[in-house]
């Protein structure tokens, strides 16, 4: 359709608003409350225009463009009215700097000190220079504010992790509220009260933490002012540039962009125009990555252990030492732990290097057990999240989407709110639960039974009664059902039985399967390297059959195992108890280029954004230096040659079945009346063997590890509170843990998450072998507190 805007002809295919057509033409109509991801709102009225044949000033962001429309955006009357509107907005927003005659010079020299006495002004605002209000004032042009000004005097809210809120700077455009409700479908914040008393936040005066905020940061990105500010980049100022990349933290590998200032990655955002980005990421991709890259604990120089202690050494010395250790290691006596977070190029280089540098090395990764192998056998069939968008039935199995798997939980929420029935099987309440038509909570300890019932009902005909029969009937009736299986299922002792049942269900229904897991590029490891299970390698170490242990981005031990030499190549230093002989600093996310196998098995590439800090090097370069020190001259790891070794599609090869693994523990009894079922989880929040909670204080708050988490009803009944310490008893075992409280956990269940690196270690056994298992609580006796 054709129309005219400011005497220029404009054209548009399909429906669009006047504002959209104008901005596509490069005509700038001032606007504050409109946002590309959100439905037209018409709240700020700054985008008013004149349309021939229409009365008054319609708002461009809500008025659909129509054939033959004649639009004016810059008439005198419009500009006058816009100035009035903007002045009204500014009468409730600290505005000294916005209308100051010396503003331009002040940006460079800040000579106007007199303002300090009554306002902190724009120079102290985290959004200075990126603020859309500043931009609007500049385009509209305002010299003074003729209305009485009003300062709300609200206390800034700084108590929640990841972002702060100063609603004195808020212009009530509602973008944060709308992105949380419309786009994320989380509805954690609302506009509360009205008029001058309007505030924004969760129900009552709850904090975001209390309101189960996902901390996805969509609201922060959507805010046009400095009212919402990311704690980490509050004082960094605006970014110089942005670089597209991929999030390395889970199997979904979301597209992200890295905000860069100088040589620092100051933040990460979802793709799109930086100030207008949507909210497709989870808390890890949005907030934790820059904390990881910039953390002060990073290793900057190679370190070596000498009899008198450890000290830094040059790369030359380090490479010679590493080469000597590998050369002195006997045939089949080197074990290499590879991180599932390595890029395909790093994995290919590692394989090439170790097969030249050692004789018959063993490759493994600490999380690779028989259960994970079975999960990957099934994952070969997984499709991408996009591919299930035309499904007419969704079933998630043991999905815990809290702080994880954002694109998947968003897809479920969006489909379900369009009316697609969604069934959630599992105990944990997550962002998708509110959209479930049916929530099925299998009896803890007997959880595979329901899946078997479904599989059985599918083959036995439709007559089956009970929940299994009902779900089977729904599956049969659906044309395009999708099953979502999360690696959270691996926390169950019955995981293998559950996975087998899922495989049978898929076979009998042709349902599409989507699997998600927190081990980003595990498919790459299994495709490019002949892997063994961690258990198999662990037994070799225990039997003294390993001379040299080479840990690459994996820290499976919390104390030194009995080996002659131990090399640790990672981003963060290993614990002192590991007594590594050599610690080699590596480049990490944002500092490397490479590729991952993504869900669906295709290969996706990303580019480096900044140089690594100190003397840290990419893995390939470390291998090249060691190879040179060993006299293997031809190993150069030329990026193009490496890339040719990597197939464009994942071809997962499973490790040999770990037959010698300890037989599954016996099922424990059902829980007694007063007891609990304990679900032990491996934390899904790790990167290169490091628990992300140790790097990100915010993540440690929202997803605590080594804490027994209960439903609030249970803590109220037991008379315990968050922060107390209690003892947990199961059979003969007894261990003390701090208490946490969360509504995401159902009554009668308690969840204990362990940081990932402790699991493979014999020194740190899980408190109970079976999960979930029946346990009893005993309150720790401390003075003044009684036994429960």
């Amino acid at each position, binding site marked *: 359709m054709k129309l005219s805007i400011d005497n220029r002809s404009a054209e548009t295919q399909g429906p669009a608003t006047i504002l959209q057509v104008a901005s596509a033409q490069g005509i700038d109509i001032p606007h504050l409350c409109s946002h590309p991801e959100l439905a037209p709102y018409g709240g700020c009225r700054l985008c008013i225009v004149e349309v021939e044949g229409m009365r008054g000033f319609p708002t461009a962001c809500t008025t659909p463009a129509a054939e033959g429309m004649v639009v004016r955006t810059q008439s005198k009357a419009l500009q006058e009215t816009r100035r009035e509107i903007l002045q009204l907005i500014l009468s409730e927003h600290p505005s000294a700097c916005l209308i100051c005659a010396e503003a331009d010079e002040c940006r460079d020299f800040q000579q106007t000190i007199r303002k300090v006495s009554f306002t902190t002004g724009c120079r102290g605002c985290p959004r200075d220079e990126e603020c859309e209000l500043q931009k609007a004032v500049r385009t509209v042009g305002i010299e003074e504010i003729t209305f009485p000004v009003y300062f709300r005097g609200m206390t800034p809210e700084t108590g929640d992790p990841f972002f702060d809120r100063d609603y004195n700077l808020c212009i009530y455009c509602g973008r944060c509220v709308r992105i949380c409700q419309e786009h994320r479908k989380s*509805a*954690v914040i609302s*506009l*509360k*009260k*009205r*008029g001058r008393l309007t505030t924004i936040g969760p*129900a*009552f005066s709850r904090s975001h933490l209390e*309101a189960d905020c996902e901390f996805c940061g969509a609201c922060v990105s959507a805010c046009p002012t400095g009212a919402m500010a990311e704690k980490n980049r509050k004082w960094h100022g605006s970014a110089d540039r942005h670089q597209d990349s991929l999030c390395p933290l889970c199997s979904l590998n979301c597209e992200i962009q890295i905000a860069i200032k100088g040589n620092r990655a100051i933040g990460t955002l979802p793709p799109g125009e930086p100030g207008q980005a949507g909210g497709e990421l989870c808390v890890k991709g949005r907030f934790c990555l820059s904390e990881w890259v910039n953390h002060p604990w990073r290793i900057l120089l190679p370190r070596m252990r000498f009899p008198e202690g450890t000290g830094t050494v040059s790369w030359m010395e380090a490479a010679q030492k590493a080469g000597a250790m590998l050369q002195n290691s006997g045939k089949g006596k080197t074990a290499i732990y590879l991180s599932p977070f390595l890029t395909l190029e790093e994995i290919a280089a590692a394989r090439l290097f170790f097969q030249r540098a050692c004789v018959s090395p063993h490759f493994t990764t600490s999380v690779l057990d028989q259960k994970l192998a079975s999960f990957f056998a099934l994952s070969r069939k997984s499709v991408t999240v996009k591919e299930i968008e035309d499904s007419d039935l969704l079933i998630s199995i043991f999905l815990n989407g809290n702080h994880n798997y954002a694109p998947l939980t968003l897809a479920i929420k969006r489909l379900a709110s369009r009316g697609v029935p969604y069934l959630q099987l599992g105990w944990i309440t997550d962002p998708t639960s509110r959209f479930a038509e049916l929530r099925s909570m299998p009896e803890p300890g007997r959880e595979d039974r329901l899946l078997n019932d479904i599989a059985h009902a599918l083959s036995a005909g439709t007559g089956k009664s009970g929940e299994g029969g009902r779900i089977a009937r729904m599956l049969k009736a659906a044309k395009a059902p999708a099953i979502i299986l999360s690696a959270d299922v691996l926390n169950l002792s019955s995981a293998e039985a559950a996975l087998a049942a899922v495989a049978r269900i898929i076979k009998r229904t042709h349902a599409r399967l989507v699997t998600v897991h927190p081990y980003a590029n595990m498919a790459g490891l299994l495709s490019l390297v002949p892997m063994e299970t961690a258990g198999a390698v662990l037994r070799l170490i225990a039997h003294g059959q390993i001379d040299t242990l080479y840990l690459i981005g994996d820290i499976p031990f919390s104390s030194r195992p009995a080996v002659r030499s131990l090399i640790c190549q990672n981003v963060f230093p290993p614990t002192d108890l590991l007594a590594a002989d050599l610690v080699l600093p590596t480049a990490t996310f944002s500092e490397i280029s490479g590729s991952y196998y993504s869900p669906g098995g295709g290969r996706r590439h990303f580019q480096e954004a900044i140089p690594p800090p100190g003397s840290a090097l990419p893995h390939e370069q470390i291998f090249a230096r060691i190879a040179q020190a060993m006299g293997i001259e031809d190993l150069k790891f030329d990026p193009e040659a490496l890339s040719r070794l990597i197939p464009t599609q994942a071809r997962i090869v499973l490790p040999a079945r770990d037959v010698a693994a300890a037989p599954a523990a016996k099922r424990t009894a059902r829980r007694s009346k007063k007891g609990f079922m304990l679900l032990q989880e491996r934390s899904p929040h790790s990167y290169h063997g490091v628990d992300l909670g140790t790097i990100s204080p915010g993540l440690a708050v929202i997803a605590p590890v080594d804490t027994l988490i209960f439903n609030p009803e249970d803590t109220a009944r037991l008379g315990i509170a968050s922060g107390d310490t209690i003892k947990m008893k199961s059979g003969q075992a007894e261990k003390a843990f701090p208490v946490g409280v969360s509504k995401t956990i159902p009554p009668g269940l308690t969840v204990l998450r362990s940081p990932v690196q402790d699991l493979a270690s014999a020194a740190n056994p899980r408190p109970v072998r079976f999960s979930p298992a029946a346990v009893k609580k005993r309150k720790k006796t401390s003075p003044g507190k009684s036994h429960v």
Partner: protein
Amino acid sequence: MESGISSMAGILKEFPVEPGSLIPILQKSQKEFGFISPQVVERIAAFLKMTENEIYGVASFYSQFRFIPKGRHTITVCLGTACHVRGGAILLEALERHLEIKTGECTPDRRFDLDAVACLGCCALAPVVKIDNNIYGNMAVIKIKELLEKYE
């Protein structure tokens, strides 16, 4: 609250699960319990498949809904433009200090609850304080103590 929750089920039974039910449910609940408690919001949220935050956002927009139990007397301080200019906020602060509660709370003896509104519609008398249905214009901090003594 136990009995409250069971009569809550009775209230919800009368309404279809659709967004349009929200206001009538809130009205009925307020009539039944005198105020909208967090437990009531939780129940409505589960019933309408909305979040507690959405429900609270809608409910708090209307001044007819209250979120604290009523005291025997309700003090309302005006913070509209006229009253603000003439010291409404200072009055509110003084009342908070005097009653040892915050805005939106009720004294432990249930004698007073305290709230603020955006305009009471009698700006000529600013600053204005309303107790129950009585309007007190041209208020000042020093008059507070004496005024409150009239209400038992």
